[in-house]
């Protein structure tokens, strides 16, 4: 009979090896799908690589995409460490963008440095407060946060729609429902051809790593994630920890909203979030919630998204292929975790378990 036995702790290298193997298996499975579409998988994957890294322009696009994805993933990681399933990244991004846009539209003539700083702080507070609503319910009554964070995505979306079609509609756009473009002061400057957000991302990787791994709050978050009982026993203020952690989770997503609105869209629209809040869930999980790995995975996923948009034009493969591939990769990695934790044992005799014990 086949039995499942828990493994001894695996070495880090082996664990990483298994995850990489899982990603490769996912890519192979996707290759079959591409093959079934009468396309050459090698050519398509080659096209994706070219689309991601084929020119200086494309590499810059990958860096831009990776910047937002990294920051959002860091935010999601803070919440996930606590087993708070924040799937409201999209809404927090939108509300961050909304708060930043408020200042961009109302104080367009402030000096760039002050205006941008204000927009950043506003965005972080906006995203953070938006995330704090479900955190408050969770802390107070243990209300399921998964669904509430998600519902709030839709509310944020409708809110931005309301602004876009109503009070903030650009009167000079000839009836086209758009919010006015930002002035130059409200647009993030570029460093080496890419908006300065990439530097924020690198700094934040470091800060969040220190926060999660070496600060008291970070430790409390991890304990609470393991077990609320332990946290209570250790004298941790559970309610405050939940609310603080989720505030920062939302604040980082809010910052992404500011970056997206200011540097990329130059305005607020329902498109600013681009699904980053959802992709960040995948990258965060793939990176096992580790900030430095998040950076790495985000760059790879940014390349995947850019590559997918390239093959759309080159091979006529729908853009949704990127989402499909992301889902498949995560499925395989989720499945692979089993082989990190367990192994199969074939029992020959009914007392096989005993034999197993004796062989130890």
């Amino acid at each position, binding site marked *: 009979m086949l039995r499942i036995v828990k493994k001894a702790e695996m070495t880090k290298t082996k664990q990483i090896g298994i995850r990489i193997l899982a990603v490769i298996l996912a890519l192979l499975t996707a290759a079959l799908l591409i093959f079934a579409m009468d396309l050459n998988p090698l050519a398509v994957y080659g096209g994706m690589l070219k689309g991601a890294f084929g020119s200086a322009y494309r590499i810059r696009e990958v860096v831009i995409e990776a910047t937002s994805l990294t920051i959002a993933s860091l935010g999601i990681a803070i919440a996930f460490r606590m087993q708070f399933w924040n799937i409201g990244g999209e809404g927090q991004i939108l509300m961050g963008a909304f708060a930043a846009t408020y200042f961009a539209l109302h104080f367009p003539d402030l000096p760039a440095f002050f205006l941008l700083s204000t927009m950043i702080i506003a965005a972080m507070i906006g995203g953070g407060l938006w995330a704090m609503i479900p955190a408050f319910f969770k802390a107070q009554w243990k*209300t399921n946060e*998964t*669904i509430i964070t998600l*519902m709030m995505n839709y509310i944020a979306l*409708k809110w931005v729609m309301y602004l876009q079609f*109503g009070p903030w509609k650009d009167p000079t756009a000839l009836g086209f429902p758009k919010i006015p473009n930002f002035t130059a002061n409200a647009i993030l400057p570029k460093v080496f051809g890419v908006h300065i957000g990439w530097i924020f991302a690198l700094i934040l990787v470091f800060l969040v790593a220190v926060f999660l791994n070496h600060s008291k709050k970070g430790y409390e978050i991890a304990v609470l994630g393991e077990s609320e009982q332990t946290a209570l026993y250790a004298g941790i203020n559970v309610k405050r920890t939940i609310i603080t952690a989720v505030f920062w989770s939302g604040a980082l997503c809010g910052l992404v909203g500011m970056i997206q609105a200011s540097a990329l869209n130059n305005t607020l629209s329902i498109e600013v979030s681009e699904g980053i809040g959802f992709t960040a869930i995948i990258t965060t999980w793939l990176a096992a919630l580790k900030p430095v790995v998040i950076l790495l995975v985000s760059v790879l996923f940014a390349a995947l998204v850019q590559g997918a948009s390239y093959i759309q034009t080159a091979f006529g493969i729908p853009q949704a292929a990127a989402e*499909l591939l*992301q*889902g498949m990769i995560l*499925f395989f990695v989720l499945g692979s975790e089993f082989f990190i934790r367990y192994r199969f044992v074939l029992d020959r005799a009914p007392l096989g378990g005993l034999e197993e014990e004796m062989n130890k």
Partner: protein
Amino acid sequence: MTTTMAIVFFLQAALVSGTPLLFATLGEIITERAGNLNLGVEGMMLMGAVSGFAVSLFTQNAWYALFAAMLAGAAGALIYAVLTVSLRANQVVTGLTLTIFGTGLSGFLGQRMMGEVVPEAVKLVFKPVSLPVLGDIPYLGPIFFQQDPLVYLGYVTAIVAGLYLYRTRLGLNLRAVGENAAAADAASINVSLYKYVHILLGGALCGLGGAYLSLVYIPAWQENVTAGRGWIAVALVIFATWNPYRALVGSYLFGGLDIIGFRIQGTGFPVSQYMIDMLPYLVTILILVVVSFRKSKENAPPKGLGIPYFREER
């Protein structure tokens, strides 16, 4: 048109709009009763929506289309079941991934069908039918018994699910698995088999709910046709306190909320349509909060919900 007639028409439409929610909610109730929280409802609905629609285009046959949709939903659920039941993966993350995967798949397959409409032969099958006698009851007749066949199927499914859960041996076993898998196992109930069967059944119902949207409700292909209804279904399970009969009430209530913005738009009501569109989501949050702060034993979720069961770690 009198006000009474307007209300009757509104309620009639609320039932139609609530039917996809009903199928998905029932599916998720069955899944969660087996102790598994599957957050992939939205994904499975989209997989059902796109498969059902594609098959309706190719075969012009309504029943094949519905069958394909249920199969697609079950296929999505199968991925989830293999990962969470056999490979013991995290249920929340696996469900979320299923939603992302299903969304991707429907976008991928659906792109070529953008703007296509459901064939006439299929539409004909889903035409409202007035039931004899019942359909003639004043007010109630038009609301409940002059509907399309799938609305009736919704009533039947809810009642069958309720009878199954509360009145059959299998249903009792299922509830045991969801409440306390170890005890069920000790009573020689095959826990994994029960989980697999009901997760797949749940997925099939979600697929059917999705197909209702693309085949009957819209009835044309549009991207992301579910627009968050899968998530509302997950919340409705809590609202219905895992009870199929209450799922009927909840689904139709939300069906009404879903269309009220659109209905109110023409009446000169002084609130932005976008604000009213927030209602279903706001009410969902409100319900979850209210349910959570008046926790009672009777309305509690299955005790084993979300907790993976491994015999070896008992």
